[in-house]
């Protein structure tokens, strides 16, 4: 199975804009871009992404809380989640993996390589299942 539908949750508008071009124009994914965890939880089921790209530091509901919320949704229980964040201390990264993320992508990210990275992670994820 090939990765086609990706949901990106990111409160920073600038980054959202860059990511959107990178994931759609460069990588060619079908993208749902949300500016908060709450909006993501509200729209995720309708969109039914194959992979979710989550920021960590967001107001009201951070990435980890959003992940927890997603896992509450039956259809989202197994969907792979990748954190893309600037909070990349070793301990922080471990925390995300422990919470159930399959990988962490450091910010700043390379917009030209982001799509390839997600493809690779998704294939890895499928192989492990």
């Amino acid at each position, binding site marked *: 199975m090939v990765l086609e539908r990706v949901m990106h949750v990111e409160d920073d508008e600038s980054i959202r804009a*860059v990511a959107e071009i990178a994931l759609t124009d460069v990588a060619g994914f079908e993208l749902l871009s949300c500016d908060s965890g709450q909006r993501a939880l509200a729209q995720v089921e309708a969109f039914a992404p194959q992979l979710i790209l989550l920021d960590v530091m967001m107001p009201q509901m951070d990435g980890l809380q959003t992940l927890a919320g997603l896992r509450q949704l039956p259809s989202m229980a197994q969907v792979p989640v990748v954190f893309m964040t600037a909070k990349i201390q070793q301990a922080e990264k471990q925390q995300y993996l422990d919470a159930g993320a399959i990988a962490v992508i450091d910010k700043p990210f390379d917009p030209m390589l982001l799509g390839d990275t997600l493809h690779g992670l998704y294939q890895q994820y499928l192989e492990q299942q």
Partner: protein
Amino acid sequence: MQQPEIPKNEKQRLAALLNSALLDTDAEPRFDRLTSLVQQCLATEIVLVSLVDTQRQWFKSRQGLNACETNRDISFCGHAILADDIFEVSDASQDVMFADNPLVTHAPFIRFYAGAPLHFQSQRIGTLCIIDPKPRQLSLSERHLLRQFADVIEQEIADRLQQHSQQQLAASELMYRSVLEGTRIGTWQWNVQTGETVFNERWAEIVGYGLDELAPIDINTWLSLAHPDDLAASGKLLEQHFSGELAFYDCKCRMKHKNGHWVWVHDRGQVVSWTADNKPLMMYGTHADITEQKQAELALKASRDQFQTLVANIPGITYRCKADKHWTMLYMSGSIDPLSGYPATDFINNSVRSYASVIHPDDHERLDLAVGQAINDKQSWLLQYRVMHKSGAIRWVEERGRAEYNEQGEVSFLDGFILDITEEKTLKQQLLKLTSQLPGVVYQYQQWPDGRACFPYASANIQKIYGALPEQVKDDATAIFGKIYPDDLAGLANSIELSAANLSLWQHQYRVCLDNKKTIWVSGRATPESIPDGSTLWHGYIEDITTSKQHYLELERLNKEYQLSQQRLEMASETALIGFWQASLKTGELWWSPVIYQIFGFDSNITPSVALFKSTLHPDDRHLVAESEQRALQSGLHDVVHRIIRPDGNIRWVHELARLLPAGDSPDQVLVGSVQDVTERMQLQQMKDAFISTVSHELRTPLTAIKGALGLLHSGKLGQLPEKVQKLIEVANSNSERLAQLINDLLDVEKLAAGKMPFDIQPLLVQAELQQAVDNLQPFAGLHQATIALQPIVAGLKVQADSLRLQQVLTNLLSNAIKFSPKQAKVLLTAKRQQNKVLFEIVDCGAGIPVDFQSHIFERFAQADGSNQRQSGGTGLGLAICKELVQQMGGNIGFDSVPGKGTTFYFALPVKPDTIN
């Protein structure tokens, strides 16, 4: 006239005459009656009992004649005694032998003479003669009558003598009896054959009885009173006397006194008559009380025995010798035997050897001189010298002697006493050896109440302690007291007085000033003894304790310093909230310092225990502590930071740092450690971490957008841009890369400095790691028109490292090499085993590193040109980070560079031990 002849046996005859005891005695009726009877019976004018003496004839009895003697030459009796028959001259005037005899020619005008010889003891000692002035012839009956009268006279002579003897005996007995009474000697008479015995009163008195009390007396009386033990000896003496072996029976024995005590008696007797068959019959003897004499004798004997025992027991030899050349020995006691191996008799009169002969030859001259000098000075001598024992052994002796002088002042004898002092000498030598081994002085110190003092004995080391020789202080200790450190003198004197007064052990430490101006510390210790002359004698030991005293003083100073630093430490530990503790993992025993109560918020009266400590652990951190304890069992180091919950509910951070004592020192698995309240530090750290995290995040977020946007523009995906715009986009893009790298490097530097960079050390295949680095850097190399040449690596070579960090180092060094290489250049990458390391090398052929800069190359923010235009485009932190990473993975890093020719960077990391060469 014919003189009478002298008989042949004249000598015996005269002896018999003398024995008759008649000559020159008074007239006696017994003879005169008989001569008178002869006068009448034979009708003669003159009758004489004439005794023929040497020169005369003397008349014991005479009738009809006044003269009492006439000369033997003219005597008729001188002729009459020449034969046994009656000598008769009928008419002397007609006889040629007598006619001119003056007794014939003158008065009494003898004509007739007849003499019958008188015998005594078979000798003719004289005659019974009759004389008439008229011639006459005796008839046969008349001759017979004369002879009979002569026989009666002979009998009278014998009787008279016996009677006389008896009288004399009686007188002598009386005398002896008086003497005996006077001497208080008892007498006895014993009929050996019948046992009949007579004692005198004195005999009985000696044993306390009257004679009547002892009646009836016989030999059994003696036997019953004699001491039973003495009977055998008495019997033997009797036998010897009876057999003639002993002239007298002479016996001293004990007899039982009436009062029960024993009296010593001396019996002496002799057999006075024998039976016909030669058995002893009568025996007479004396019986003397010799109790006093015997007691005196016994006392004397006892005293002599005592003296002899005394002499024998004296542990030495007494002698007296002549003052001659050979010292001729007159007396020498028996103790010479054990000393010399020769008996004393050998030396008496130098009979076998002289005493000088056993004296060691080397000592002779010295002894002769000393004795000679002493004799001259009339002094006694005291000498020590060697005597050679018969066995060859050498014995040391001490001799005290003195000469005895006579009234003229000449030496009569030498008297002396010799004592074997070998043992003492040996002991002295042993003592000397022993004391010479001791570092201090062994001594005796004596002090009198008047203040006099001396050291009767001191070992040689007294010179070391006081700088004085033993001989110098033997009689006077003054020299010593002059050496005592003035400030210590009073204290020393007091301590001695106190010891003397209480007879208590003397112990004192004081200083002594030696002659070389050096002051030493000494310590003395001695036991006092009270001496009858009022003095006190100490036996003790003094040693130089200068070194240990200095150590002690130093120790005291250090101790004070230690106490001070202890106080400072306590203050510091209180201020820094560091507590100390000691715990046994085996027994659970725990000790902790007061600060711990403060840190843990415990009540001060609570008893420390491991269980109590564990109860304070924050539940989330229990595993941290347990893991650290486990590690401590392996590594010996317990190092953990964890939280505790105090009794008031307050949560605090503590840092425990402890070491497990080596098993040999502590079988109870004792951990000794400190605990510090690091709550504030932890809070600061947390704040710092949060700050860095936040700063990092907040920098990266806008950078993400900028870099992303530039990246997209630069990629051309969004359409071709004018050339100038494209150029500016490139500049912006590469600088945003630098900014991102700078943020990453800063975070790494901070982590490395704080030791918080985690490393996951694994065995890594070198080939794979190098290949990955080459792959990662390939695009970058392409950009710089450089190539990376990976040299062949030994298959299977593994290195112990964290893959992520190894890649970080390789990437950094490779990107540097690429950056500093000219276009079209080649960068070599290689790795090989070097002993227990893997050596990585990155070789470029760039410009090399300027010499001035080489020493700064691993410093932070160091760049060689220092200009604003940086060809390299690095952050200035890369090599500093590489160095930290390599070192923290147990390796080392360096470079070789020749300016203008290129640079080789190398680093070495531990090889995986079982890796193939």
